């Protein structure tokens, strides 16, 4: 799929489809190219073989129907929370007062009301990523691309944000592609889990997660949850052992 200009073959035999309003999580051993895949879907890096398309139209670059949430938050350190959230709207030419209104709504939704004037460095990691999420949602994308968004957070914060994301997703039902290296997270959030192999990354399997929505943290105790998680670990473990 991506030959990286005569360099390393990062991905191959990637063939999958994400449906409207579906939440797909991608998991694989580190270095399998899951982030590369997400960036290709985002239109941030070119691919030189195969096809990546939305509604049958090939992706040639970033587009207004997609928004990305980044692993390292990618907040502008000089801009306050409000300015960070309005960024996407502003650069797309939305009138300023409309930007502010929408941004304020989303700041409220992610629970950061009262922090509008704070700089990113004055916020905790979890709050910073909520800004990142609000910024992505502000442009009202059909497809939300999330690149290990909670990977840099401590476990407690991560779980709180997972729960918040689940609630948000229930309300907005966006199409989400979510890259993670956490098995709990992959099963907890996804309708389907895409399991990838080590470099060159391939789709090993698409696994349905037959857990009911809306999901609460309780699903972690259910048999299906544990079973899928163990199945993932068996596979990932085998891959890692094979590698090292």
């Amino acid at each position, binding site marked *: 799929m991506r030959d990286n200009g005569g360099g390393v073959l990062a991905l191959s035999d990637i063939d999958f489809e994400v449906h409207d309003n579906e939440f797909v999580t991608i998991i694989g051993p580190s270095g399998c190219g899951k982030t590369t895949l997400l960036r290709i879907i985002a239109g*941030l890096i070119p691919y030189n073989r195969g096809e990546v398309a939305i509604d049958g139209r090939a992706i040639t670059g*970033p587009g207004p129907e997609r928004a990305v949430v980044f692993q390292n938050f*990618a907040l502008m350190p000089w801009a306050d929370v409000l300015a960070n959230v309005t960024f996407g709207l502003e650069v797309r030419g939305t009138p300023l007062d409309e930007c502010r209104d929408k941004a304020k709504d989303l700041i409220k939704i992610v629970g950061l009301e009262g922090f509008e004037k704070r700089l990113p*460095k004055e916020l905790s990691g979890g709050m910073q990523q909520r800004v990142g999420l609000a910024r992505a949602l502000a*442009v009202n994308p059909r497809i939300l691309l999330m690149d290990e968004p909670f990977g840099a957070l401590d476990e407690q914060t991560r779980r709180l944000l997972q729960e918040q994301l689940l609630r948000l997703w229930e309300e907005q039902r966006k199409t989400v592609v979510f890259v993670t290296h956490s098995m709990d997270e992959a099963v907890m959030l996804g309708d389907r889990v895409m399991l990838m192999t080590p470099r060159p990354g391939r789709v090993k399997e698409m696994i349905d997660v037959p857990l009911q929505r809306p999901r609460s943290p309780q699903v972690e105790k259910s048999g299906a949850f544990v079973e899928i998680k163990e199945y993932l670990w068996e596979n990932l473990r085998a891959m890692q052992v094979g590698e090292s």
Partner: protein
Amino acid sequence: MKQETVAKPAPKSSAARTVVMPRGLRSYACRNLPEVLAPLAGAVLWEVLGWSLDLQWLPPFSKVLEALVQFVGSGVILANLRSSLQALIIGFCLSLILGLFLGSLMGRYRYVEKAFDIYVHALFVCPSIVFAPIFFAIFGLSDAARIAIIVVYAMFVIVINTATAIRTVDPSLVEMARSFGCGEAQIFSRILLPASLPLVFAGIRLGMGRAVKGMINGEMLIAFVGLGALAEKYGAQFDAAKVFAIAMVVLIIGLVSNALVQMLDNRLTRWAD
């Protein structure tokens, strides 16, 4: 001599002033004791050495101040100061525009950097004063020659800092901007420019200092006007007090211009503290 009667009480009166300082000034002095004491101690030491050693090249500090007062009173300084500052401002602004422009391109585009890097570093390392005769040949005894000298002094450090600043902007911010559909112009104005500001300002500060140097050196060597020409003239007469007095004026220009840049810097890059 009249001069001596004026000169001798000077250190005493400055000592007396510290005692009767207004309250605000006093609390400032307490908080910044080393900054306040260092120049005072320097002045006292200078004064003592000046009187005790009685060297021709080291007049007491009070005599320098006296020469300075005379300069200011007679209007000599003001006329030359205006001429010097004019060249400084034009030269520095040109350096700023050229430096930021070239630096931005070099920081953003690898091939521009590769093409210009050797020239920028060569000109940065090269003692800028060697260009003085060349500019003299090109521009003659005009302001343009002085301004050109200031530009070669000040520009390259701005170029180098700006290029480094732009190149080291967090690439994930650029990627974030691209993901929202930003084109090159928006990436520049909304990400690269604000993100690089702290480092760019460091370069501007260095450039400002070098511009002041370039101003004086240019005036001393080619264009016989301005403060540099005055320094040159009194230097030739071995009038150390007057040379030092001019050096004090240059020092003040340097400090004030640095403070101005610093003020702007603090205002614009508070987020980076």
